[in-house]
């Protein structure tokens, strides 16, 4: 993974801060006391299912919505009441919102036009911005003639050409086909880092978030469940909700033994090393452990240690095979393995890897 450039590299402290944001629509609380901070040059992904309040949060950051409580700050200044036009943010909309009646370069130059930059200058800068996103010479083209990926780049160029104080992106990859999506992830990450301002983007796709973001804020039903690096969320989830949303895995009950925990499946007890949740010193009464597919191993019946199980599903995934193993009537786990030899219906043993495994309350 690239170095996370969370350290300030912009002018002074230009961090974007959402402090205790709440937004209600009638009886419905779309965003409930959410606080996040994005440093200059940092990429923060707001992740959540639909209805989690992530888009409303983004719109509050952009100024299209006003929070009922809480504040939005940029570089220490309260901008909660500042209209979008005065914030100087670059926004990329989910469907890009490119002006269909303007050619590419006029779209990109629009923000400069709004700032009264003369035509020659703004078109020149629009072309530079287009070149920066890999669209040299596309300036005169009609929006309708662009592919989805090209439209996305134009939207990005349009947001960046105004030298924004922050970049906001609403599901920037959701309209791209899967292959394009893979390459755009890397490009997007590189381009956003180059701009060096706080970048906040919304996605429902955790793979996008893992691939692009420096940090992830996970939302559910308007509440912030956890924010941290992708590594934190995956390996040190704060709750079972986070663990079940992020990554694959099965959550099983366990007995808390400090740095270890004992899992009993079908009468077979195994003790494994665990990471305790932040701040949880005291033993947890009802503890759980997350069994990720990559933290388990599968072996033949000759294996002594481990839980015995049956392969209920085998899915080829390139270098590895994903086995779904039924260990008991109530526990089914997924195991990622380099061992290709098992078929559906085979008996096999599942053993935990080195760990440590996330322990949860």
């Amino acid at each position, binding site marked *: 993974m690239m170095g996370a450039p969370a350290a300030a590299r912009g002018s002074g402290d230009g961090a974007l801060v959402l402090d205790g944001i709440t937004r209600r629509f009638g009886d419905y609380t779309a965003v409930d006391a959410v606080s996040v901070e994005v440093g200059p040059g940092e990429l923060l992904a707001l992740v959540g299912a639909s209805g989690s309040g992530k888009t409303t949060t983004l719109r509050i950051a952009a100024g*299209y919505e006003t929070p009922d409580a809480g504040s939005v700050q940029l570089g220490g200044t309260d901008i909660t009441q500042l209209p979008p036009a005065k914030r100087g943010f670059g926004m990329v909309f989910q469907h890009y919102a*490119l*002006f269909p*009646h303007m050619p590419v370069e006029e779209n990109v130059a*629009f*923000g400069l036009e*709004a700032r009264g930059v003369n035509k020659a200058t703004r078109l020149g800068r629009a072309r530079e911005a287009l070149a920066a996103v890999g669209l040299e010479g596309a300036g005169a083209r*009609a929006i309708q003639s662009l592919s989805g990926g090209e439209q996305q780049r134009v939207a990005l160029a349009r947001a960046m050409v105004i030298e924004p104080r922050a970049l906001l992106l609403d599901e920037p990859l959701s309209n791209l086909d899967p292959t394009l999506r893979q390459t755009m992830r890397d490009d997007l990450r590189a381009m956003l880092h180059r701009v060096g301002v706080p970048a906040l983007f919304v996605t429902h796709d955790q793979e996008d978030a893992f691939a692009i973001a420096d940090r992830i804020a996970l939302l559910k039903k308007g509440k912030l469940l956890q924010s941290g690096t992708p590594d934190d969320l995956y390996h040190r989830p704060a709750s079972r909700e986070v663990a079940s949303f992020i990554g694959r895995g099965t959550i099983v009950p366990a007995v808390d033994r400090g740095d270890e925990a004992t899992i009993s499946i079908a009468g077979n007890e195994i003790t494994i090393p665990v990471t305790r949740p932040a701040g949880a010193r005291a033993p947890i009464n009802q503890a759980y452990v997350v069994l990720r597919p990559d933290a388990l191993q599968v072996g033949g019946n000759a294996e002594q240690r481990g839980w015995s199980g049956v392969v209920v599903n085998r899915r080829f995934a390139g270098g590895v095979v994903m086995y779904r193993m039924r260990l008991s009537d109530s526990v089914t786990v997924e195991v990622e393995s380099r061992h290709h030899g098992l078929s559906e219906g085979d008996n096999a043993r599942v053993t935990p890897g080195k760990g440590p495994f996330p322990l949860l309350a």
Partner: protein
Amino acid sequence: MGVSEESLVPAAARASAPRQSSRSRDAQRHTWLIAFPVIALLLWAVVYPNAAVVAGSFENGLGHWREFAASPADREALRTSLVISVASVFAALAIGVPLAFLLGRFEFPGRRVLRAVATLPAALPPLVGVIAFLFLYGESGVVTRALQRTLGMEEAPWRLKGVGAIVFVHAYTMYVYVFLFVSAGLERFDATLDEAASGLGAGMWQRLRRVTLPLLMPAVAGSMLLVFMNALGSFSAPYVFGGGLRVLSTQILASKTNGALGLAYVETTVLALSAVAGLILFRWLDRKRKFASTGKGGRTRRVIRSRRAQLAMSVLAAMVVIILVLPHLMVVLVSFARDGAWTTQVLPPEYTLENYRRLFSERELWKPIINSVSMAVVATAANVVVCFLAAYLIVFRKFTGRRLLELLLALPWAIPATAIALGLAATFNRNDPATLRILLVGTFWILPLAYFIRDTPLVASAVESSLRQMDPSLEDAARGLGGSWFLTMRRVIIPAARPGLVAGALLAAVTAVGEFVASVVLYTHANRPISLEILAQLRALAFGTAASYSVLLIVLVLLMTLAARSFEERLA
């Protein structure tokens, strides 16, 4: 009325493609079996009469054309027609665009009421609107006299005459087109485009100028075209308020009445050509549009919060509502006025039910109502059958004559009603099977034919838009399951076309029952429709009777609308 604003502009003016290609030779033969009679009928009823008019204008070489060119009256008529049309377009824009923005983008006390009455002027049959204006703003109208009394003036503060008066009436009746088109455009407008612009730093006016208005241009241009065509063909307003003013449509009737048929043909040709030129001009102006409306909409209206602004908006809304409702109220009021009693007073002095009693009891007065209703029924029935078949062919069949059929269906829309009527008068004035002429002038059938032609574009495009919403594979599926063509029609196609058929039939019936422009050219005493009886009563200064006919007409329109709605609801 359940019709999208787009169906006011016929298909040929828009892009369209058949949904399915008929593959086999058998299917092709079947297509022609339906297409031939439809196309033949339209060629005979629409193209032939108009061609006859054009031919008639050249009956003694360029003689009639020279006569036209040399006549100061005709040159004035052409100029005035164009001036009125262009002025009407701008007047309608000036009212329709702000009103659409106001109702579409803002929330304020009184918005619902205003929205409810905003389309009311379109519900007035053309001639009724005109006489309502006469009662209100005419030299001896209520508003005029009230103002004159209050200000203690010797004479009326204005005269409802000339170009200004005509444009005034046009603005009132035709802004509705602009309002409907722009409202629909605003509803479809992708709100994120506006947000994107504001996020990029654009202020309100900049967004309006650079984003909102350019994207609304297709809707605005469409409505401008509609107003232009209507104003150019308008007859009632110039006829009643023109005074000495000449416009082409009234000039045609004058020439015909004076027996100068050759000149009337030239005038008709010039009027039709002006309309076609207008159509081409607008399509050319709109040519650059390559983008489609994104059609997501979803913008919430801005709530006006400031107390003062709320008050101002409510007062403004109330005033507009009164202005819009006043003509209707006035017609109702006058319908109770005793004929001959209303002379110099501000309001009619005596009220009575006598007008209505006579309307229903005297055979001679009852006759026009029977005439209008039966002629509207005949015309509408024909419209439903022919337009359904035509729309079916256009949407589902691919054949060589498809473009021609589209053009034939749109043609009556581009030709002013006066021109259509004169064409019918010139063609069906004698029996001559060799030239495909039959005698219809002077019979019952001439007016239903005229109504049928006028309403064909409306009904066809309503049905077409319904059929286009149907999944084309449904027909294949039905046929594939072994359904006969008739069964497929009855169980699949007609149900799909039904909303368009009902809406189209309603529009056709409403238009036909109050029709005036073609009727005034073609009517005889025996088959005179309500509109002409209104005019006759007005001429005889029987304002009360004229108004009670008008009320009856409005009630008829209302009843038909309710009937269509309940029919739709029962089936839907």
